Structure formats: structure tokens, C-alpha cells
């Protein structure tokens, strides 16, 4: 009786009694979800265009953010550090295409996955060597990102919105829109979608897979840098972030590996879901629900809907 009450009754009573707090929880979950979505988005870009499951997406977030912060520490002005960090992701993308993908083309998927695991270890090793292993604060103010917060008085209480969180959400939306335009309106974007649909046919019309692969890795490198900046601004930049980035896997299972809308919705669902669960039901499980909630949700999905929420429809003509 006691148990049923704490599962089915008490949490909802709580929610209704303090709606301002409920809003706060949802907002926090939403912002975390935006970041999960962005990491998953980087995955989806690469997976769609090259069929490579890029295990290194999480470390790319850390690596790009560390590069940015370290450049600034070394005396480079913030805006120039951003440009250089983007440049570094570009060089990384081209090198990965030249040195890894090109050599392994036509190999089994598992071999490509291994290669990206190898890449993860290399980026981590090189990153620690160059940037050091200790966490660094993000250069939030130097980048012109807002700090501080706004209180919203509602339902006899207040909800606090950190300005950096609002900025993260706005920037994420803008970036997704920019990607959308890029994919649907540009020559390269069209070629990317063509490659995602049919490699062979894309080759046959003269689309260079090498070029396209380098471009998608670069694009997801930029997504990684933006994610790293936002995440770093909320906490700090450290390799611990990589673990959290693994939650993007759960997001992918929810959203489907090839769907950009899926990555976004999946990320938000997991972000909001785990926060709600942690706050209202967490006590039942002891603490630390946030660490596993995403994976359990993903498992449930694997059992009942393995193609994900938005797994791309396979066109079958009759």
C-alpha cells in the first residue's frame, strides 16, 4: 500500500502542490535534453552518410571544447580561438577520412566501429597530452554568452531560468534550422542525402564519397564544438563529459539511428524523463537514477520498438 502510494499517488500530489517546482524540473530536463540531442545529432549525421557508428562523437565534444579553452588560455582572443577550434575540427575530419575511412571502406561495420573506438582512445590520449587532464572552466563570458538568471514568478513561487540555458536552447534551434536548410537547399546537402540513400548510385553520378565523408565529419565536429561550449558553460570542460555523452546512445535507440527529428525528440524525452524520474520517483531507488534511467528506457524501446520512434521509413513500392 505504502509502495503503491509512493509510485502512483504521492509524486502527482507533489507535482500539483508545487507546480512552479515541476516547471523548474521540466526546464532543467529540457536543457540537458537539448545537449543530448545535439550529441545524438552528430552521430546521426555520420551514420546516415557513411553507415559508420561513430563511437568517438562524445570525445569529439570534449576535445573540441578543450581545444577552444586551451587556445584561449594560451593568449588567443576568444573569437579567434573559436575559428581555430573549428579549423582543428576540419583538419580532424579530413585526417579521419584520409587515414581511417578511406582505408577501411567496404569493410564490415564492426571493423569501422572498432576503428572509431580506436579513434576515441587516440583523441583522449592526445587530448590529455596537449591540454592536460584536469577540468577547465568554459570561457563563457569571453565568448559573449550571457550569464546570470531571470526569475519567473508563477503559481505563488518562482522558476529560475539561467540565461546560458536559454542561450543553449536558442543556439541549438538555430543550428538545427541551419542544418535543415543546408540539407534541403544546397548542392552539397543534396549530395549528402543522396549518399545516405544509396552509396552506389551516388558514386555512379560522380558524387565523391571521400569529399562527402569529410564534410559530414566536419559538420558533426562543429556540432560537437557547439555542444562542448554549451555543456562546458553549465558545468566545466572535462573528460568526464564523455560518459554523459554515452547517453546519446540511448537517445539514438529511442529516436532511430537515421532520423534527425528522432535525435532531437529522443534527446528531449530522455532529458526531461530522467529529471522527472529522479526528482519524483528517485527516492524509491536510492539516488543516482539519472545515471541509468536513459539506458533502461532504451532497453524497453529495444524490446518493443527496435526501429525507434522515427526510424526512417523504408520505402517499399508496390
Amino acid at each position, binding site marked *: 500500500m505504502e509502495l503503491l502510494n509512493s509510485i502512483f499517488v504521492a509524486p502527482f500530489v507533489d507535482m500539483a502542490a508545487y507546480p512552479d517546482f515541476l516547471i523548474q524540473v521540466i526546464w532543467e530536463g529540457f536543457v540537458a535534453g537539448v545537449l543530448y540531442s545535439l550529441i545524438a545529432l552528430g552521430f546521426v549525421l555520420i551514420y546516415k552518410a557513411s553507415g559508420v557508428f561513430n563511437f568517438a562523437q562524445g570525445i569529439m565534444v570534449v576535445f573540441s571544447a578543450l581545444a577552444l579553452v586551451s587556445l584561449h588560455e594560451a593568449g588567443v582572443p576568444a573569437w579567434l580561438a573559436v575559428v581555430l577550434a573549428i579549423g582543428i575540427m576540419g583538419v580532424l575530419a579530413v585526417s579521419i577520412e584520409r587515414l581511417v575511412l578511406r582505408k577501411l571502406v567496404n569493410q564490415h561495420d564492426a571493423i569501422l566501429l572498432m576503428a572509431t573506438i580506436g579513434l576515441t582512445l587516440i583523441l583522449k590520449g592526445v587530448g590529455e597530452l596537449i591540454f592536460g587532464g584536469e577540468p577547465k572552466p568554459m570561457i563563457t563570458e569571453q565568448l559573449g554568452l550571457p550569464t546570470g538568471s531571470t526569475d519567473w514568478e508563477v503559481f505563488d513561487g518562482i522558476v529560475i531560468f539561467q540565461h546560458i540555458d536559454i542561450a543553449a536552447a536558442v543556439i541549438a534551434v538555430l543550428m538545427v534550422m541551419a542544418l535543415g536548410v543546408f540539407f534541403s537547399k544546397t548542392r552539397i546537402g*543534396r549530395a549528402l*542525402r543522396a549518399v545516405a540513400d544509396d552509396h*552506389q*548510385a*551516388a*558514386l*555512379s553520378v*560522380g*558524387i*565523391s564519397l571521400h569529399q562527402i565523408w569529410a564534410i559530414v565529419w566536419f559538420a558533426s565536429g562543429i556540432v560537437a564544438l557547439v555542444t562542448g561550449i554549451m555543456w562546458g558553460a553549465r558545468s566545466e570542460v572535462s573528460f568526464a563529459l564523455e560518459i554523459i555523452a554515452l547517453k546519446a546512445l540511448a537517445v539514438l535507440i529511442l529516436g532511430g539511428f537515421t532520423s534527425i527529428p528522432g535525435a532531437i525528440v529522443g534527446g528531449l524525452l530522455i532529458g526531461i524523463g530522467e529529471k522527472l524520474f529522479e526528482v519524483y520517483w528517485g527516492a524509491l531507488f536510492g539516488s543516482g537514477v539519472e545515471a541509468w534511467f536513459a539506458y533502461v528506457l532504451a532497453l524497453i524501446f529495444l524490446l518493443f520498438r527496435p526501429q525507434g520512434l522515427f526510424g526512417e521509413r523504408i520505402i517499399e513500392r508496390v
Partner: protein
Amino acid sequence: MADKTPDSQIQNDIILSVNNIEVIYDHVILVLKGVSLHVPKGGIVAILGANGAGKTTTLKAISNLLHAERGEVTKGSIEFRGEEVQSLSPNELVRRGCIQVMEGRHCFGHLSIEENLLTGAFTRKDGNAAIKKDLEMVYQYFPRLRERKGSQAGYTSGGEQQMCAIGRALMSKPSMILLDEPSMGLAPQLVEEIFDIVKQLNVDTGVSFLLAEQNTNIALKYATYGYILESGRVVLDGTGDELRENADVKEFYLGTGGEERRSFRTVKHYKRRKRWLA
């Protein structure tokens, strides 16, 4: 290579020459065992043969799409407009004017018809105006594509997809199109329509065609020259008329000849006959 290249005085008029090539898949499966063929500028040449004869392999050897299937040209040479092409990527070959329309059309299913056509212009550098103009030209040849230009290619009919695939190739401004089984799975009337357009394109724009077909009847009606392929070898070649009149071709490929001989090589080939006629 000392092989059967044509007389040097006509070499200038040859756009594509394949000289005695051998193709091996997966390092062990020998599929082409010395194939030679030539396409004159502005010609329509057909490669004929049954399932598994090596038609697609020949076309992919030329367009360099073999690598993606772990196939390799191990002997012989291929020259497109006098240039050895074996070291070129498909991308470079398309830039030089040689493009393949793959067997089974391979349209980009999630792209609209018009987007499909535009991907064909990927390698072009001559600006949007020129590309627009060619898009218009493709729509003139295939009015049906204009009607369906906003539809996702994956949901269009087989005939429309074939038209889309040919139109997409045209958008690259090719001088040579390698056309793999355009008739596959289409109603006879539609096959006729597509071949008519191919002929029209050939006459109007001078683009050369090398087409692979199982449908010998229709192919020989439109081709100026044909090669018959059996298990990786050319067993017979000649002008369209010569082949149509040839007793063996009549029997095994057109189904109109006598009964006493069974095949160029082996008797078991008679089994295939039904399929060629189908």
C-alpha cells in the same frame, strides 16, 4: 597490349575501347575472361547475353564502379576518348563525360524527382543557369518527370524511375552513357517508349550509348552494333542487322530459328531460351 584494336584510321572515331579485359571479384572469382569491344562516337552499341554473362560487370569495369564491389580489372585496358581510365575514380570519369545508369535504376528514394535530376549535375562547374537549362531539356524529353518532379522518387513507378535515372545521367552533360538493362521489369510499350527517347537523344545530342540488355529483340532494333556475351567472353559481334540475321542469334536470342543447334558453347543453354523470350 597486342590485341585486336581497330584500324588506326578509324581510331579517332572511337569514343570507348575496351581491350581484352579480365575481371576478378573478391580476388578469386574470374568473371570476365578477355572482353574487347568498341563504341564509335555517336553510336548505340549493345552488349547482349543471359543472366550472369558479365554485362553489368563489363559496364562497371568501364565506369570504375567495380571497386565498390571488390571487383578488379586484372588484365587489359580501357580507353575513353583516347585516355586510359583505369586509375580514375567514378567522379573523375563523370567529369570527363562517361556516366553509368545502373541496373535497377537506383534512384535516390527519399529525394524528389527534381532533386534526383539535380544530383546528376553534381560534378558540373558551369553554373546554375546552364544546369537549369539542361533540367528543362530533360523535362522536354521526359514530360512525365515534369509532372512528378515534386514526388519522392521512391514512390514513383518503375518506368518513371527509369526515366529519372536516365535524366539524372543526362544532367551530367555526358558524351557517353552506359545504360544497364533499361527494359528490366517494364511493360513492352514502356520499353519501346524509353528506347525511342534514347534513340532521339542519340540523334539530337550525339551522346553515345553502350547498353546492356537481355531483351535482344528490342536492343537490336535500336543498336548500330552488338556484342554477344556468354560466361565472360564475347562469342559473337556484328552490326544490328547482321546479328538479327544470324542463325544462332535467331535461335538462342530471338527465338525464331531452327531447332537443331543448341548453343555457341554448351547444350544446356537451351534452358535459358525461355527467359530471353519472356
